[in-house]
């Protein structure tokens, strides 16, 4: 995923229709972009407000801005889907077959951005990951994300018990051990329910912090609050990835994947 933004999130930037965000962008309501074709202010949307020609993507636009959404985490998902379909229709390269090569390329560029943006934002987990990535709170690759030691202990133990079950399964199959297999399946199923329960708990917690985040967006001096919420989100996501792996692994053992 191409994320270059590592500064603090500048809310509402490049987001013309967004009246939610409070800070610095309020004094300059729209980015002063002018249309490449008619030179009038384009309005910052997909198409020029004056002449209707398709516009190039702003360099640092984010996916929220692409859908003209504030950087909220609790979003109207059906609304997003509807917007996605509308935009797919409007930006579809087929509409530009008679246009100039430049416009055809812009249509391609915007269409592919649309797909990336939609894929990223429609799922709440990838949405929050995206937000944190843009803010530089969460990074891909080499950065060290420390997990709390108790969590590591817990995850390690859960993994070990799963491993024991796995080994017992591969060893204890032949002849006399038929009964053990049923027992093992029961244990695995129990473990799975346990992990799924934990996953549901994390998701519920995440959802609560999503709401907290959305509230900070309305605060004019919410920078510190937003930072704190982001740290909380990051921790929950870390916890979630461990648990998600456990759920997946036990599912594999049960032959569900």
């Amino acid at each position: 995923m191409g994320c270059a933004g590592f500064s603090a999130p500048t809310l509402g930037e490049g987001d013309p229709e967004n009246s939610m965000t409070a800070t610095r962008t309020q004094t300059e309501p729209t980015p002063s972009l002018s249309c490449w074709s008619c030179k009038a202010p384009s309005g910052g949307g997909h198409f020029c407000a004056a002449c209707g020609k398709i516009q190039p993507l702003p360099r640092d636009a984010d996916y929220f801005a692409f859908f003209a959404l504030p950087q909220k985490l609790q979003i109207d998902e059906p609304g997003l889907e509807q917007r996605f379909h509308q935009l797919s229709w409007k930006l579809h390269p087929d509409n530009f077959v008679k246009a100039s090569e430049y416009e055809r390329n812009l249509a391609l560029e915007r269409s592919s951005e649309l797909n990336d943006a939609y894929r990223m934002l429609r799922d709440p987990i990838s949405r929050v990951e995206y937000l944190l990535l843009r803010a530089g709170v969460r990074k891909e690759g080499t950065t060290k994300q420390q997990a709390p030691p108790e969590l590591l202990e817990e995850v390690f133990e859960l993994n070990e018990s799963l491993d024991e079950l796995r080994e017992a399964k591969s060893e204890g199959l032949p002849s006399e051990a038929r009964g053990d297999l049923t027992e093992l399946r029961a244990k695995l199923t129990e473990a799975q329910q346990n992990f799924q329960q934990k996953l549901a708990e994390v998701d519920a917690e995440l959802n609560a912090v999503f709401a907290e985040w959305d509230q900070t967006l309305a605060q004019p001096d919410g920078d510190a609050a937003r930072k704190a919420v982001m740290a909380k989100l990051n921790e929950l996501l870390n916890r979630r990835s461990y648990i998600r792996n456990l759920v997946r692994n036990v599912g594999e053992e049960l032959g569900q994947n």
Partner: protein
Amino acid sequence: MAYSDKVIDHYNNPRNVGSLDKKDQNVGTGLVGAPECGDVMKLQMKINPETRVIEDAKFKTFGCGSAIASSSLATEWVRGKTVEEALAIKNTDIVRELSLPPVKIHCSVLAEDAIKAAISDWKKKAGEEQTAEASATSAHS
């Protein structure tokens, strides 16, 4: 993405899988994790307090092939080394040896962290003062 032959070899025949007695005075345990991918890695070393030589090393890793290979290689490398030599192992050495692609570099970072964490645990048990580098790596965010 294809794994290198060395990664596959370590993955199929991991060296030194297992555990050592956590309560043993001479055993240092490092438990580290990479939350981005959900991997957890435990590395243990039995260290001779007189010679400071790592006489045994075991690991157990729950994670992808690269994480398993990185920790397997780490146990191979630290065996027979002194604590100071082991601390000099860099994640980039592991990347090079295993030809890890950029997206898997964090696996090697994890292995390096595990070595440092295990040694720092041993030092703590031995009543040694935490060295600057050990406290730097065990410091959380």
